[in-house]
């Protein structure tokens, strides 16, 4: 168990999340992809704290911040989805392309 292993896990999660964010049509699914990416950040942040600079709490705070970011971003995501659903009766990003060019 070392830093590299954790980072590989984080990289894998990040890449899978990115794939989801890029490929999913439904907004909620895109959000899941983003959430997976944040998940990777949690892993990486914790690992950095533990394996690089465990003496100071900065890494732990970083993980907390990441979690907070995840929470608020998800909350906003749901809010936006709700709005989109109400305003356009849509839940797909592809359906929101009136504005372009």
């Amino acid at each position, binding site marked *: 168990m070392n830093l590299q292993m954790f980072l590989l896990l984080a990289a894998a999660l990040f890449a899978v999340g990115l794939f989801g964010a*890029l490929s999913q049509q439904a907004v909620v699914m895109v959000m899941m992809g983003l959430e997976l990416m944040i998940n990777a950040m949690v892993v990486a942040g914790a690992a950095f704290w533990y394996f690089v600079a465990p003496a100071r709490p900065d890494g732990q705070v970083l993980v907390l911040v990441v979690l907070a970011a995840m929470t608020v971003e998800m909350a906003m995501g749901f809010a936006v989805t709700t709005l989109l659903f109400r305003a356009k009766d849509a839940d797909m*990003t592809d359906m929101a392309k009136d504005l*372009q060019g």
Partner: protein
Amino acid sequence: MTAMLWLLFAVPGAVGGSLALGGRRTGRVAPAVALVTAAVVSGLAVAVAVGRPAVTVAFVAGGTFGIAVDGLAAPVVVAVAAVALLVLTFAVGDVHDGRARFAGLMLLFVAAVLLTATAATLPALLLGWEIMGATSYALIAFRWRDGERVAAGTTAFLTTRLGDLGLYLAAGAALTAGPGLSLDRLAELSAPWRHVVAAGVLAAAFGKAAQLPFSFWLSKAMLGPSPVSALLHSAAMVAMGGYLLLRLHPLLAATGWAATTAAWTGALTAVVLGVVAIGQSDLKQLLAASTAAQLGFVILGAATTGVAGGTAHLIGHAATKALLFLAAGAWLTALGTRQMEALRGAGRRYRLVGATFAVGAVGLAGVPPLALWATKDEVLAAARQQSLSLYIVALLGAVLSAGYAGKALGLLLRPLPAGRDSGYDTEEQGTRRVNRWQEAPLVALAAGAAGLELLALPPVGDAFARLTGTPGGPAPTTSEMVLSGALAAVVLVAAVVLAPRLPEPAWARGWLGLATAADRAVVRPVLGLARMVARFDDEVLDRVVTSLAPAGRRTATALAHFDDDVLDRAGTSLARIGRRTAAGVARFDDADVDGIVTRVAAGVRRLGDSARRPQTGQLHQYYAQAVVALAAAVLLLILTR
């Protein structure tokens, strides 16, 4: 005294300017004002000729404005003023439309001439010189309803200005060389610049004096009113060309080649234009050609050691030729024609005019004891001193002058044939009368033409030579004078007798095609080029680059067309050059700058469209682009590290 010098041209300049700008309201008083002014100017001229003032004021950077009346200028100033007074007097009775404009322009012209004559530095000279040209344009084109006359004025101005460019060059060279723009120091300039100055001066003088190859403008200028011809082409503008060389004789002498060139040009002009004059059927054209020929003698004198003779010839010619032009003008006004065939016997119909004309013509022929006989001989003597061939050519010119004078005289003094009225009124509606205003100046000028030979004969001649600052010039021997006088008399008589039968070939009537040649060699190519440039500029703006091809083709066709009727080979080669220029311009067009500008604009617009393409509105494509761009940034940083 310097104040008088200033007034000498300030008075006619100011009066003339206000008359010219004053419009029709001043028309009624204009002749009187003009006469008074001319009289005042004459008085001033005499005064400054006696007082010899000189003044220099600061003018432009590196060049002062200097005017002075020296021995050379004094008689010329007086002559110009006197002729001007007489011509204006004649005009009172001759010019009835646009009097204010006429009088104003004439006075402006006189002011310019007087300034030219008194100029002591190049800026002052150029000032008078160019205004003289411009006013000559306005005077020749005086009857502007006729497009041909306007064109004639334009030709006169442009041709003489072409020569004037030489003066600009000369001024530049003089300023560069150092000692300044003073006329009497031009001969001291260092070597390369002196030659440039001389070349420029020659060009300017030849242009104004209607020497070869510039002579053609004088032919066209005959479309101007007769008083204008009488002033411009006797005492003033044309004469100033010769006068400039008289004044700059030291410069010509210092360069060497310039003197030779001037001498031969003068002599050849005397011969060639003499032949042309004999071939004329139009009285004023004959006189015009003879003016150029006579100025040839003046220039010959200036280029050799006959400065005094040249000056005397200039003055004598001024009186004689003014007389002849005025007489021609009187007939033109009365009978409405200038054709000598039609004017046959006109000398008998208006006897005073005829008599004075006879005096002038005989004088022009160089028959003793009239003015141009002695003055010309003095020039011939100087030529002989230079080279025998020059002398022979010049003598031929002298003989020819007797020929054309005799031709005119012979035709005009013939008995009035019956029913000749049919030839009248070809140019304008004649008045059939000659009034006192017209006659009085004729008499005065005839007196001048008869008496001015004194300037070249001892003892007055010596004094005159001293006056002009060139004593010790070669004096003609008695035998020479007798020879030339006798030759002139014989030829004159022969010409008078043979007058109706003298040939009038087309090449002579057309002044050797000089005008056509100039038109084809200079004017048309320049106009064509101008149109091409203009069209090129336009079409580039309108981004119709392609349509230049037909334009070029059209130009080429036009050029080919006139190519066909050009007789000489020069024209052919010119056309080829023109075509090549057209092709060149067309090629240049492709690489043109504004074309590039418009193309850049179009390219930017296209880029703008492609810049909008990433903004698809599709979020997943935004994502993909953003991530790829960031990955590229990472790679950039890692790889270039």
